């Protein structure tokens, strides 16, 4: 593969900065943007990471879960029955994001509003449950709701129905980069004039013995069962795999003139997007990091931003041996030594298809607060990691530009460039 060179992938389209006007977060670090931000910065409640009965006996029997909100109470039983948990979390996050943006779904031009939500696994827990029903009780006891609850577009359609969105709504599924690709897709839709407003990000809940058992077999997840809170440790010498989390992170993005016309408060801009494919492995990242480098260089060129201007990176930083070294080495090569790098996954868990949505939202908040959340559990920084990783406590910075990177199984890479409002 030809190595991606600086500026080699500048798209033909004119620069376009989508306005971020609303944030919605449902995470194990907290529900609601304020609580999640405090959780990510280590100044809120401790992350909710626990042993789960349904994972008992597995080498990894713990997960980050959302425990401070009750979807049944928030959504009501009538709506709840048509959503698996990833869709429920998405609707809660979408309501917050739209309210934060000051938008009123009863009066907006609903045909000009879109929804783009990424998820890797959709309603896998319901699939897992119904497979057990089939095996144990027979075909006549299987729910007729399997398809509507498990399809990956369930979150997008649920949000569209809940908010009364009549523009395009779709799901993006590129494994663990799904949320980032969803926001990038929203950026492209706004740039193309397909809509004025997009609710975009990611949602995931894979509280499933089936999936975690397979992840254990793959040896991709941490087996630090004696101390779940310390198991996810991105960029640490003793990292031994990721820890799965559930959550949803959604942004309201708008065409800048639409946000301006209604006097909306703009939190930040999505200024550039790049995506690429490794064409290398079903699970492992390209060992040279060339795929994610290509995505990042494309995003920088799309935004018209130079490496020197990037002050902060919210990295994919999964806490696997391979990802963290490859990604950090790439970041140093493309951006240099100066950006403040963090991985917020020790606070939220690896939320797979939701990760890009949650972490982009946290990057928007980092730009607003000029504060970089710490990488949790970074007690013994890996000396091979060649970037400035923020650890222990949040660090103040002065930066107008930040980057979010994501890598997904199958070699789906994505990067966003965000700029300060």
């Amino acid at each position: 593969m030809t190595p991606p060179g600086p500026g080699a992938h500048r798209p033909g389209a004119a620069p376009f900065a989508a306005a971020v006007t609303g944030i919605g977060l449902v995470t194990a670090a907290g529900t609601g943007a304020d609580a999640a931000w405090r959780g990510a910065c280590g100044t809120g409640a401790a992350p909710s990471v626990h042993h789960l009965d349904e994972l008992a006996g597995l080498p990894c029997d713990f997960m980050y879960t959302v425990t401070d909100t009750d979807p049944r109470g928030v959504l009501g039983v009538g709506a709840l029955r048509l959503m698996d948990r990833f869709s429920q979390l998405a609707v809660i996050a979408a309501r917050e994001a739209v309210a934060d943006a000051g938008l009123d779904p009863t009066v907006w031009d609903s045909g000009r509003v879109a929804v783009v939500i990424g998820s890797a696994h959709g309603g896998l827990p319901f699939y897992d449950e119904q497979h057990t029903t089939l095996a144990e009780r027979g075909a006549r006891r299987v729910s007729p709701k399997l398809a509507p609850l498990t399809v990956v577009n369930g979150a997008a359609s649920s949000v569209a129905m809940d908010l009364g969105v009549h523009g395009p709504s779709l799901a993006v599924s590129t494994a663990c980069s799904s949320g980032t690709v969803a926001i990038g897709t929203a950026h492209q839709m706004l740039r193309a004039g397909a809509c004025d407003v997009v609710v975009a990000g990611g949602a995931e809940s894979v509280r499933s013995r089936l999936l975690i058992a397979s992840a254990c077999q793959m040896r991709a997840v941490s087996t630090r069962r004696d101390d779940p809170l310390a198991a996810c440790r991105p960029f640490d010498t003793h990292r031994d795999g990721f820890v799965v989390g559930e959550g949803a992170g959604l942004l309201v993005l708008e065409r800048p003139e639409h946000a301006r016309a209604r006097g909306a408060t703009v939190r930040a801009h999505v200024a550039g997007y790049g995506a690429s494919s490794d064409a290398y492995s079903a699970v492992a990242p390209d060992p040279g990091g060339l795929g994610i480098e290509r995505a990042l260089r494309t995003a920088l060129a799309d935004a018209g931003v130079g490496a020197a201007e990037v002050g902060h990176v919210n990295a994919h930083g999964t806490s696997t041996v391979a990802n963290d070294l490859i990604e950090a080495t790439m970041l140093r090569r493309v951006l240099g030594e100066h950006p403040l790098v963090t991985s917020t996954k020790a606070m939220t868990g690896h939320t797979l298809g939701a990760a890009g949505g949650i972490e982009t939202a946290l990057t928007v908040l980092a730009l607003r607060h000029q504060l970089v959340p710490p990488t949790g559990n970074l007690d013994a920084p890996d000396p091979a990691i060649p970037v400035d990783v923020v650890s222990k406590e949040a660090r103040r910075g002065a930066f107008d530009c930040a980057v979010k990177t994501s890598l997904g199984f199958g070699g789906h890479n994505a990067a966003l460039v965000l700029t300060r409002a």
Partner: protein
Amino acid sequence: MSTSEEINALLVTRFGTDPGAIRPEVPLRQLRLDSLALEELRLLIEDRMDVDLEDVVLSSRDTLGQLVAAVRSKAGA
């Protein structure tokens, strides 16, 4: 619990139906029970009341009273 009480309880607890809207003469679609909901309700009634409703034809145009009567006929069979 009677058959109608069992079904009414399922409507409230599993479908979020307004208890005030539940009357025998009300068509099921008026209670927001579409074709998917009716199939879900069929399974729930079978599990709860230990009846086999496989050959009962359910339609949203039917009233709640007709549904209760159909279940009663199977329960008594």
